[in-house]
């Protein structure tokens, strides 16, 4: 039922003028993918710096508060650009993404990762000084965050290799 609805939507979408333009101008897809990956690069670096600091692996002498203030906002600045460039890719090739189970998994992980980042943002920005060990729940959250964002990147690449329904 859900698959059928998505299939009809995808077929309608691929017939729209916007979609046919994206399909017929060969540079749009690679250019959009490049912008998408560059934004992913900023987000991933920001996530990894903060999470690895929480886990005591990176920048141990720097305060968590400073790192969080410096890097976490990038995620929220770039998420709209990621959603917009992602939308262009979907409109251009609806069948490749909407009906792809890996794409579904990516979107699910993205929602959970975004909610987790939102939930951890406040305690991270008000975390204790550099010498103190972050609390247990922050470390668990950082570990989960690393796994989720890595999964998002992996899923993004695997969309190209897994067949749609």
């Amino acid at each position, binding site marked *: 039922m859900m698959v059928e609805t998505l299939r009809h939507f995808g077929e309608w979408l691929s017939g729209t003028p916007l979609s046919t333009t994206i399909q017929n101008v060969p540079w749009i897809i*690679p250019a959009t*993918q490049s912008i998408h*990956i560059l934004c992913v690069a*900023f987000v991933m*670096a920001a996530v*990894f710096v903060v999470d690895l600091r929480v886990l005591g692996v*990176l920048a141990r002498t*720097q305060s968590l508060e400073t790192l969080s203030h410096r890097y976490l906002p990038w995620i929220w600045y770039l998420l709209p650009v990621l959603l917009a460039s992602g939308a262009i890719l979907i409109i251009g090739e609806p069948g490749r993404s909407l009906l792809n189970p890996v794409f579904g998994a990516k979107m699910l992980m993205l929602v959970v990762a975004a909610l987790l980042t939102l939930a951890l943002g406040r305690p991270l920005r008000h975390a204790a000084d550099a010498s103190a060990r972050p609390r247990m729940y922050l470390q668990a959250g950082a570990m989960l965050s690393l796994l989720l964002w890595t999964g998002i990147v992996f899923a993004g690449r695997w969309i190209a290799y897994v067949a749609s329904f």
Partner: protein
Amino acid sequence: MLETFFQWLHDTGLAETVRANPLMFPWVESVHVLAITLVVGSIAAVDLRLLGVASRSQPVTRVIHDILPLTWISFTVAVLTGMTLFTSSAVDYAHNGPMQMKMLLLVIAGINMLVFHLVTYRSVGAWDDAPRAPLPVRVAGATSLLLWIGVVVFGRWIGFVSGV
């Protein structure tokens, strides 16, 4: 000479293993993409500080010190996975235009980093805390940022040009 080398790479056991296991390429490629995002993102964070755009209240040395281990570890992973992917179709990739451009930009980025480190960075004490660094520093940051953007663009382009 070079052709013989690429053919030899193509015939190595590693290349044969990648070709014989269809799932291996996408897995190695996924790790490669992950590593590249971390390399480019972490370098961009430093470049934006050099340009005086981000982290202006932090000393340059501090920003670099915090993030550099992530850059180097990710870069090592990116090189190892990249070489694995390259060997699997070494001859084809060697003739792939975007791949050649990507390698050229990587070499220039390396030279830019070396010059920055050996020349410009020596006077860091004088501009470490300044929100806006001297012109040569900002030029190095802008150059690095543009080169790495180019690396990502040409890297993505590789798959669109040939059948590899």
